[in-house]
């Protein structure tokens, strides 16, 4: 594959455990992402999703393996890879403008303050925070804080964005609006994005590829679900798409049962070639009855 932009090459994370043993959080993860693609990783808590993201960000190092971005192995954090943290992690003593321009002036150190402000203002406008430039984070709602986080990440015009459950702390309405914004911005800017989420609907709405991760310890990437939904999908319409439930049920099934048993049940699994699946296209659509049963069993 020559067009791959980012690839995880056999990364593992191990921690020493009591008694001279080691705990393997995950091992032998192989994954590649193309430029401009939106990839979501979904999996249960504790499977090491955040660690994978931190390794991609350069904030953490893998015990084995390497991460290649744009043909270069990464070595530490970089301005090419912007991170949107789970907590907004804005600097509380700086205003909205101060937080965004801090990032801008970190990237372009020789810029005049007018240039920095202009660039910061552009991205504050992009996330719809015009007029709140002089507010401190404590004066903003959760959704607005996360918008500042997004503006800060985008303002340095990174090669890729890494998002760690960016909307998990928000109420449903705000989350919906911000998902729309992120989708719009990613499509407009052609941003390569890697996002972690717990929310199946969010993954289906936003992602081109949804990576399913099994439970830790010893987590692996089980499948890459290729999203069959059209590119111009709308958040309020996605659930009406004929393939929506096939994709959704496939992911929910995985999370409810297969994420625990995947490793034992798939003896010949080759982690270097994670299978691509297209639910609803590769397999016959599920029986209407079984859909009802599956929906009912979701509230486990």
């Amino acid at each position, binding site marked *: 594959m020559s067009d791959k932009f980012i690839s995880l090459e056999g990364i593992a994370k191990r921690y020493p455990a009591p008694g001279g043993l080691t705990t393997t959080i995950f091992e032998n993860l192989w994954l590649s992402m193309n430029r401009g693609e939106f990839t979501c990783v979904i999996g249960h808590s504790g499977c090491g999703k955040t660690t994978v993201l931190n390794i991609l*960000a*350069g*904030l953490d190092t893998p015990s084995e393996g390497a991460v290649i971005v744009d043909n270069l192995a990464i070595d*530490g*954090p*970089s*301005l090419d*890879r*912007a*991170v949107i*943290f789970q*907590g907004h*992690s804005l*600097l*509380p*003593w700086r205003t909205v403008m101060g937080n965004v321009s*801090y*990032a801008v002036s*970190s*990237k372009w150190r020789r810029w005049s303050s007018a240039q920095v402000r202009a660039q910061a203002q552009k991205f504050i406008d992009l996330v719809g925070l015009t007029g709140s430039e002089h507010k*401190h*984070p*404590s004066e903003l709602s959760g959704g607005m804080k996360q918008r500042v986080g997004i503006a800060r990440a985008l303002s*340095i015009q990174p090669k890729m964005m890494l998002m760690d459950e960016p909307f998990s702390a928000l109420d449903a309405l705000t989350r919906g609006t911000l998902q729309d914004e992120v989708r719009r911005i990613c499509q407009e800017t052609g941003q390569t994005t890697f996002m972690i989420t717990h929310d199946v609907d969010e993954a289906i709405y936003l992602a081109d590829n949804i990576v399913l991760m099994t439970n830790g310890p010893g987590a692996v990437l089980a499948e890459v679900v290729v999203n069959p939904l059209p590119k111009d999908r709308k958040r309020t319409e996605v659930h009406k798409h004929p393939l929506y439930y096939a994709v959704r049920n496939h992911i929910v099934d995985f999370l409810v049962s297969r994420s625990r048993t995947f490793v034992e049940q798939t003896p010949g699994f080759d982690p270097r070639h994670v299978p691509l699946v297209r639910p609803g296209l590769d397999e016959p659509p599920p029986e209407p009855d079984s859909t009802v049963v599956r929906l009912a069993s979701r509230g486990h």
Partner: protein
Amino acid sequence: MLRSLPLRAAALSVVVFFTFMLAWHLAVRGTTAVQQMDPEYAKLMGVTATHGKSAMPGPLDVAATLWGHLKRPFYDNGPNDKGLGIQLGYSIARVAIGYFLAVIVAIPIGFLIGMSPLMSRALDPFIQVLKPISPLAWMPLALYTIKDSSLSAIFVIFICSLWPMMINTAFGVSAVRKEWLNVARTLEVGTFRRAFTVILPAAAPTIVTGMRISIGIAWLVIVAAEMLVGGTGIGYFVWNEWNNLSITNVINAILLIGLVGMLLDQILARFARLVTFPE
């Protein structure tokens, strides 16, 4: 209640003040029996013996002397008779010099300890041993080595202000949230810029709290230090007036020590409000 809380609190403060003043006034009225004595002998005895007046001054005596001091705070009639303004000035100057020397030393070392676990562990035993030493215990050593009583007092202020600031700075720096440091890391911010743009503002409230504790201790210690070294300063004034048996002046000095201490604390409190950020 209809009236606001601050108003009620102020009213209660006034009541407490006047109750205390009244109790004080009544307590020091003359009660002892007046002895009949030879007029020549009576001249040698104080008013305590001749008029039955208490040796303890009442609030009105204190207020009258205080007014006298406040009218002429800066007179200088020689080594043992200087205005209270001059005496307080000496004390404040000593505290200021010792305290600022301590700021210059404590904050960088605190930063180092907070940022480096190695330095933290290496220096911890020294800090733990040096911190509980009463600053006045250093006085003989300071007098012997520095050979100057005024500088020795400044050294004692320095040593007592050092520890709270150093420990608070180290704690504040080491407790900076990981997520803020990660923001700096992902933006490839260099060590120095990170120290000044992330760590310092994040740790500033804790550092200033340490500075506030230190200024309080420094003001407590200066009085005792000046009692020992003598010469000038409010502490020396207190001891000198005790030797003169002027309880009125001692009470005046106590009052002013309290007021200046409060003022110093308020300055630091205002500084703390400047650097505190709401989350």
